[in-house]
């Protein structure tokens, strides 16, 4: 039991941190520009594919750094030459633009890399065990991934709270016009934030690709969950997104790990029902893929502004 607990916790945290990497960019972009970027998960997918393609030529580590930079450049270009022009036509146009962009990126990935999964795997030495606990190996790669995620979280916090750029970003979040009047180049700031957000998504793809399979459907699988994270955490709240990511990561992993059925749980509180019934026989494990969406519905009913959100949606 203890080993299941330990490994589920480790896996849940890792998955949660990956989700946070994705949703932090999304929530930053949303709170600053008011754009809900539907193509965000597509940038995540691009990150994984770029790292795979570059890795074939320049090795795993250089690709790990270069791929997010490439995604950032693409993100910045999209903002500069796409979103900024569409912006004049209002939010609906922006929304539709990112929506279309998601499809375009999906199709391009199909076109370039085919429709079957590519074999994007970390180097052999990283698949060796980092430590062995209760007879189960924990690979070096998972350890490194966790470290990168934590490091990124620290760097993001430092950037936003301790640097001048961070100060400008935080000011522009709430008082964009005022920052502009003070002589800062707000459009350029927007472009930077959009690119940076995309880079974070790209980085999530780079390190998540080998863990979660690099295939053309990866954006569609994770996309909805990232939106759930942002809504549950509270629109535009970074810290909310952090808690929501970890919550969903842990919930999903633990639901699989503890294979109790609804009847078992009712039994535990003293209500006995048929353990093999149509509904009461449903196990937590089979509910696991649904948990983020159940959470979304509950949050929207009972706390529409999300865990940490300040704005009523």
């Amino acid at each position, binding site marked *: 039991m203890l080993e299941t607990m330990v490994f589920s916790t480790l896996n849940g945290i890792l998955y949660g941190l990956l989700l946070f990497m994705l949703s932090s960019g999304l929530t930053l972009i949303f709170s600053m520009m008011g754009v809900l970027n539907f193509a965000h998960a597509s940038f995540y997918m691009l990150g994984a594919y770029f790292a795979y393609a570059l890795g074939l030529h320049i090795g795993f580590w250089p690709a790990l750094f270069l791929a997010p930079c490439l995604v950032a450049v693409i993100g910045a270009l999209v903002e500069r030459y796409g979103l900024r022009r569409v912006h004049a036509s209002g939010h609906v146009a922006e929304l539709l633009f990112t929506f279309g962009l998601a499809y375009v990126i999906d199709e391009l990935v199909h076109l370039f890399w085919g429709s079957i999964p590519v074999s994007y795997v970390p180097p052999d030495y990283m698949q060796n065990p980092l430590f062995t606990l209760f007879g189960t190996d924990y690979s070096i790669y998972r350890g490194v991934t966790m470290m990168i995620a934590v490091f990124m979280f620290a760097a993001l916090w430092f950037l936003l709270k301790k640097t001048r750029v961070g100060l400008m970003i935080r000011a522009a979040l709430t008082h964009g016009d005022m920052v502009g009047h003070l002589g800062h180049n707000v459009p350029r700031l927007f472009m930077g934030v959009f690119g940076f957000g995309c880079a974070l998504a790209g980085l999530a793809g780079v390190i998540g690709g080998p*863990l979660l399979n690099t295939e053309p459907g990866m954006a569609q*699988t994770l996309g909805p969950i990232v939106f759930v994270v942002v809504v549950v955490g509270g629109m535009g709240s970074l810290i909310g997104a952090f808690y929501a990511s970890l919550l969903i990561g842990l919930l999903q992993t633990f639901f699989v*790990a503890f294979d109790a059925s609804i009847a078992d749980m009712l039994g535990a509180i003293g209500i006995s029902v048929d353990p093999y019934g149509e509904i009461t026989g449903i196990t937590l494990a089979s509910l696991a893929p649904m948990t983020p969406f159940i959470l979304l519905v509950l949050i929207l009913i009972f706390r529409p502004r999300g865990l940490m959100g300040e704005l009523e949606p």
Partner: protein
Amino acid sequence: MVKTIFNRFAVSLLLLAGVANAAALEPARFALIDPLTGPMSVVGQPALEQLKFTADRLNEEGGINGHEIRIVGYDNKINPQESLVQLQKAIDNGIRFIIQGNGSSVGSALLSSINKHNQRNPDDQVLYFNYAAIEPSFTNERCSFWHFRFDANADMKMNMLTDWVAENNDFKKVFLINQDYSFGQAVSEAAMRMLKEKRPDIEIVGNVFHPLGKVKDFSPYISKIKSSDADVVITGNWGQDINLLIKSASEYGVDVPFLTYYGNTPGTITQVGDKGVDRIYLISEYHGDFTDPEIAERQEQMYKKTGWDLYPRVSVMLEMVKAAGDKANSLDPVKVARALEGLQFESMAGDVTMRASDHQIQMPTFISVLKDNMSHGAEGTDFNFHEVASFDAEQATLPTSCRMRRPK
């Protein structure tokens, strides 16, 4: 007026084209309805390529009675509803031979729909050739004259697998992990029933179902296997689900044997490599030893040409349909079906028979285990499956409860 003239002109053009074409016989077209895109395409694409590869060879030998064999792919995205749309499309395009394999959920939808179509259109019938949807009911209580299965069904495979497990006294604790739908349930149910009968001392320490094709990270399932202390894992997983399961298992250092129905799903060997050696077992119609040089040559060519490994039973299926068409001297679905019933065929994996009573193929089956340094490797590596046990068609067979209703 102008319109009528134009129409007449068009009609005469069509007639001319028809005359020109009459020299060559109309092609025998087959529709493959399988996942050709998305995460499960690793099982649909190799079948499509294999069909085309075999069709090329058969066409050189004159096709079916001089009718050129043509393969048309229809992408069903592994979704039963989408499959029905694609089926309708294929029928509307005049295709009367439907091939499908991946997913008994899809197979079930196609089976009902084709039965219905044939009932409503007695002059225009469709045949369904199934090379991998192995839920037992298709050739038992739900058996149909229009359906032919070219793979051993889940019960037959489990019967042989459990025979083999029963003989091995090292196995005490069995863990079952399967996809949560009709086929996965059938595998798990058969495993429990047969193990209880053959080796009552074996304990089932886990019986887990996970969503079909939805799980990206098998870590939690692996830690369950670990903590159950199992000494053997049995799984009917296929496609991405076997790929990622095996990958996760090797990553976490699970070193118990995995007895799989589909451990040879493309991508698995590449991803697991060394760690799968002596650990991944496969029950299937063939093995990776390629003792026959002609088949070995075919494997080499297939990989060189398409990038996929030889898919023996898909090839055998098309060869058998050709043999039936030749025998019937017709492309009429009913005649082809009658010729297929009871057809004996000398295939690359031994002598096979399409049993007339339930349209379930009777064929030899092998259990093999992953080895390195094989003379003919899979997926361009030097790993492949080496035979450890074989069952001839008589040992593989199981009785059927089918009461076939045939057209008059």
